[in-house]
């Protein structure tokens, strides 16, 4: 497996639209729940343990068993009660597929799959293994809100990246766990929910003016 290929896929500069999404941070800042570095740290830990864990599991499964993508896509629908978050995930999945198809021959996974399904399929096409797909998924769930925090709160970018570095071992643990579950029935895959991300996404979708798409 090529580590350089994984870096290409996980690079924040990949033109797949990720910069347009704050991963729920914009609402958390607006509501006063995240004001500073400590608040961001709590947000990122919770997001990684919930959305990150689920995204990693489904990216790994979609990488290992890409042909079964409708099962993974339905599994993510059942784990994403917020319509705004389903739309955001599918929009990012579609954008990632477009970028991925310019680089590798990606298998058919529908026009607008959930983002982790697209990530798993693109990773498989790139010759990456399920653990690599999972680590890219877990890492991506925290890097998006971290860079949004610098823009929304004017936080020190060095301190924010120090938070990401401290989360890296947890990303690795989550990815290893995800890669060990790719043979599991879909209902047994992680389903860790985050009520405030769901509620916040629905509130955010009603705003007339916003900096981020989600």
């Amino acid at each position: 497996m090529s580590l350089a290929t994984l870096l290409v896929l996980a690079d924040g500069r990949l033109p797949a639209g990720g910069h347009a999404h704050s991963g729920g941070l914009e609402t958390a800042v607006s509501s006063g729940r995240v004001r500073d570095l400590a608040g961001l740290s709590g947000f990122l830990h919770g997001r990684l343990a919930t959305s990150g864990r689920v995204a990693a599991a489904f990216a790994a499964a979609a990488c290992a068993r890409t042909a079964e993508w409708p099962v993974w896509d339905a599994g993510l629908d059942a784990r994403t009660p917020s319509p705004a978050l389903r739309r955001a995930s599918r929009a990012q999945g579609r954008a990632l597929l477009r970028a991925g198809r310019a680089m590798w021959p990606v298998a058919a996974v529908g026009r607008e799959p959930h983002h982790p399904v697209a990530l798993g399929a693109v990773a498989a096409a790139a010759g990456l293994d399920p653990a690599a797909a999972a680590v890219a998924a877990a890492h991506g769930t925290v890097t998006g809100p971290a860079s949004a925090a610098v823009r929304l709160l004017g936080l020190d970018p060095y301190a924010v990246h120090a938070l990401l570095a401290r989360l890296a071992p947890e990303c690795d643990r989550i990815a290893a766990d995800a890669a060990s579950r790719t043979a599991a029935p879909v209902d047994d895959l992680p389903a860790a929910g985050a009520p405030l991300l769901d509620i916040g996404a629905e509130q955010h979708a009603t705003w007339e003016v916003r900096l981020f798409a989600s």
Partner: protein
Amino acid sequence: MRASARIVAEADGRGGTRLAVLRGESPLLLRRTGPATAGGATVHLVGGAAGPLRGDDLRLEIEVGPGAELDVRSVAASLALPGRPGMPPSRLAVRAAVASGAALRWLPEPLIAASGCDHRTTTHVEVAAGGRLVWRDDLVCGRHGEPAGDVRTRTTIRYAGATLYRHDLAIGPDAPGWAGAAVLGGPPHEPAGAAQATDPPHKPSGAGWATGSVIVAGPDLPPARVLPGDAAVMPLAGPGMLAVAVGTDIRAVRAALDPLCDPVPVPTG
């Protein structure tokens, strides 16, 4: 303590519901309550002992047959407590099956995660096409002013043979980030500095916080909307909806969710 309980509700053929099986054992004791005139039956869980405590293994099975209507409630909140150290986590497994043309409303009082508890709740509900479900669960993170213990809930709601809703929630010292702003916590709607000024010193993060959810599945769904406070009603991808609320205490959660559960939601067809 190991205990199991079972409820089987059937249509009585005269427009009402009879309880073909109503069997429980302490601490899962069951009582039929309320008037038998309204078409449906109501059963209350009446706590027969303190707990659940570490080591407890409780199972509840509910079956609602074609045309029957069943409400399941509890007389008081359940309080997950530590029990003896070294014992395995306390467990409650609830399995329910709702037939076509049947209705089940699960409306228990909250589960309170007392400091030091280690509790797991597993819920698995199968609703046949044409069945109706209202499933409420409220969780309070610690008693007044104390930090929450560990509670993990695992919920699977299936409708017409497909998984409609899969949701796990973990709170307590073993759950990373649960008291952060992505999951349940962070000081909401307060100007900077206000939280520090009003909170008692050393108040544990997330103490007393609460969350609740209502899943409605079937043909008659309430409309989606953002509720006041930190709550929302969300249409699921399948035939159902979820209402979820988060608050600094259980009152905020009740204010958002009770109107969706009582009285019976009116079909909006």
